[in-house]
């Protein structure tokens, strides 16, 4: 292992080293520049050991650490680990002549495509400069005419029941109101935040176990993603939402039963309409056991579910799963937010789904083509507002809960999403940030410097389970406190009173049609 850190014997020229390390990518222009203060560098080689992208190497002859800037992805691992803070990663200013039209994303992609002939892959979520509606909505507060509530002195209710609700409550013995007859299976969460679907394979086992531990501790749920439930996570089965995706990895009746709820994944916000591909070299023994596929074989999720070509087919699968779990668990359907999403959601609810998950275009992914991640799908805010409104108009809103996903950045987004009509939200990227993610968008390479989206033995050790669990628990606790504060100032003492309460929202800097789509009024009115 130590050998790789030093200059290869016989190589004299740094250009040769660069070419050796980069293979055929002659055109990979550096995006970032690693500035190293050599007066402060103590040659402890922490940066060399920590860099998984072969960006840093030590020249033993000259006693200097050099960087191959073209390999730097700005993951900031070396910056953070350096004991003398002598490293600074900067944007490589010296690109092309200023051009507002031909930006780096486009010409950079063309160079990469010309080098390899392949689709340009990336990770994380849409990073383009689209309008964020969350940032253009403001919340109401109680003043003279109605009192605000102090959450530190008065009880605040954050418990949320997710699942189908009955039309009316009927009981056998109405006078004593015992034995309510028509109750559907619901899952209850103490915080209206659920960890988003991230499969074992896309993320490390340590991180998934950390999420599971945090979910158990905070009384909420984690989602296994499409990668199956690892046997070691069976102790968290009451806090697991298990996913049935197009690849059907790890799905068995035991898998469905070892869960709190089952989820059918139709689409993913970051890459609506396309499937997934976990390369064979990443399918290690553990992953192969969990996914129930041979070790080293490619794990390919097809773009569509091959048994779902209509709402009726979806109904068949929903009821097949409901039969398998003996109608004891709610079944959720996850779709990406796309055009005309309200009609699709209405169909899903009529097909029998207890939960509809809407995944907006800011949602993250382990790997997706860059063009699809950046240009397909619609913002979650408008999708959520439209779906909630449509289901209300059709009188079927009680038949399913709505979970908003894709780009939930904090308690402010959660409160706004719930006010727009969501029952709860999924948080994925935020949970990754909580354990050290620096949004370098290299998830698809499986070499995450922070040990989050990797299963390489030496890298995944960088994120121990208990540290991940502690940090995710802290995040949920902080969010719960912030949500309570925000509810208190609006004069509400329960998250239920906020759900779909768009009177608490006002739009700033939005056009009339945007306000109408979101179903909110202009600020000041």
């Amino acid at each position, binding site marked *: *292992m*130590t050998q790789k850190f030093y200059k290869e014997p016989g190589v004299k020229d740094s250009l040769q080293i660069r070419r050796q390390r980069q293979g055929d990518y002659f055109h990979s222009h550096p995006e970032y520049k690693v500035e190293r203060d*050599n*007066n*402060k560098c*103590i*040659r*402890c*080689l*922490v940066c060399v*050991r*920590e860099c998984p992208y072969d960006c840093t190497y030590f020249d033993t002859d000259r*006693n200097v650490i050099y960087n191959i800037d073209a390999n730097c992805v700005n993951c900031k691992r070396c910056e953070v*680990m350096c*004991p*003398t803070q002598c490293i600074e990663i900067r944007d490589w200013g010296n690109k092309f002549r200023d051009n507002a039209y031909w930006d780096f994303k486009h010409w950079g992609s063309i160079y990469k495509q010309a080098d390899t002939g392949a689709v340009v892959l990336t990770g994380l979520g849409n990073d383009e400069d689209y309008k964020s509606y969350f940032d253009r909505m403001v919340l109401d507060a109680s003043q003279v005419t109605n009192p605000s509530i102090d959450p530190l002195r008065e009880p605040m209710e954050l418990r949320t029941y997710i699942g189908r609700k009955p039309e009316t409550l009927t009981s056998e013995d109405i006078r004593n109101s015992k034995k309510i007859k028509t109750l559907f299976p619901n899952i209850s969460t103490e915080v209206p935040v659920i960890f988003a679907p991230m499969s074992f394979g896309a993320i490390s086992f340590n991180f998934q176990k950390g999420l599971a531990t945090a979910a158990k501790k905070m009384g909420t749920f984690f989602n296994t993603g499409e990668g199956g439930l690892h046997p070691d996570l069976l102790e968290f089965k009451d806090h697991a939402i298990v996913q049935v995706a197009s690849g059907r990895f790890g799905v068995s009746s035991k898998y469905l039963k070892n869960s709190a709820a089952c989820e059918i994944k139709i689409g993913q916000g970051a890459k609506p309409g396309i499937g997934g591909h976990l390369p064979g070299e990443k399918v290690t023994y553990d992953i192969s056991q969990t996914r129930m596929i041979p070790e080293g074989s490619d794990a390919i999720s097809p773009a569509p579910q091959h048994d779902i070509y209509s709402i009726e087919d979806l109904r068949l699968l929903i009821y097949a799963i409901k039969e398998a779990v003996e109608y004891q668990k709610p079944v959720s359907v996850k779709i990406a937010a796309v055009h005309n999403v309200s009609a699709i959601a209405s169909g899903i609810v009529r097909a029998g789904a207890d939960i509809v998950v809407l995944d907006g275009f800011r949602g993250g992914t382990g790997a997706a083509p860059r063009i699809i991640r950046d240009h397909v799908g619609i913002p979650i805010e408008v999708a959520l507002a439209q779906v909630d409104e449509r289901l209300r108009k059709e009188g079927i809103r009680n038949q399913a809960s709505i979970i908003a996903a894709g780009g939930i950045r904090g308690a402010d987004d959660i409160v706004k999403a719930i006010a727009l009509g969501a029952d709860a939200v999924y948080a994925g990227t935020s949970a990754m940030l909580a354990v050290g993610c620096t949004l370098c968008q290299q998830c698809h390479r499986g070499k995450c410097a922070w*040990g989050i989206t990797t299963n*390489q*033995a*030496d890298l995944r*050790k*960088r*994120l*121990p389970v208990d*540290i991940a669990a502690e940090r995710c628990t802290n995040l949920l606790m902080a969010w719960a406190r912030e949500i309570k504060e925000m509810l208190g100032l609006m004069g509400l003492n329960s998250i239920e009173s906020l759900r779909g309460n768009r009177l608490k929202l006002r739009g700033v800097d939005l056009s009339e049609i945007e306000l109408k789509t979101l179903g909110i009024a202009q600020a000041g009115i």
Partner: protein
Amino acid sequence: MKKVYPIEERCIGCHLCEVACIVEHSKVKNPVSAYFTEGLTFNHEVSSYTPEPNQALSDNRPKPLNRCIVEENGALCLSTNCRHCEEASCILACKNGSLYKDEEGRVLLNEKKCVGCWMCLMACEYGSINRNVYIKNVSLIENNAIQHHCDLCPEREEPACVMVCPTKALAFDNRK
């Protein structure tokens, strides 16, 4: 007695414990000075250190060396240091009594007494004693250096390596 225990599953082999150890056992407790100017004297006439700091890494100056060593083999790695054995074979092997046990039970070295015979180094079952070739007590003998092992950072409540470890792969506790 509290000792430093490595946790193999958590160690990521970043070697920051070694850096922390060197810094803690330097005079200035600043990493840059500990590595470059420790043991050098500032020459006011030419307003610089003699020799120059950027050449100082290879110089024979009495600089601190790390007392814990990270052993690694691929993904498997751990930080090794002195076990402070109850019946320490290094103390038995020491011929002039420069190694001793203090009242708390840690094995310490009287650096002024040590003549650098390295018998302790031969006797240690764990290989956790190293020599610091930059410090010489007996100037006449070539390649004489005093032995060097973890002293559990007497000036700190928690040793520097434990404090600095990013994944908490070093535990400072009382286990038997």
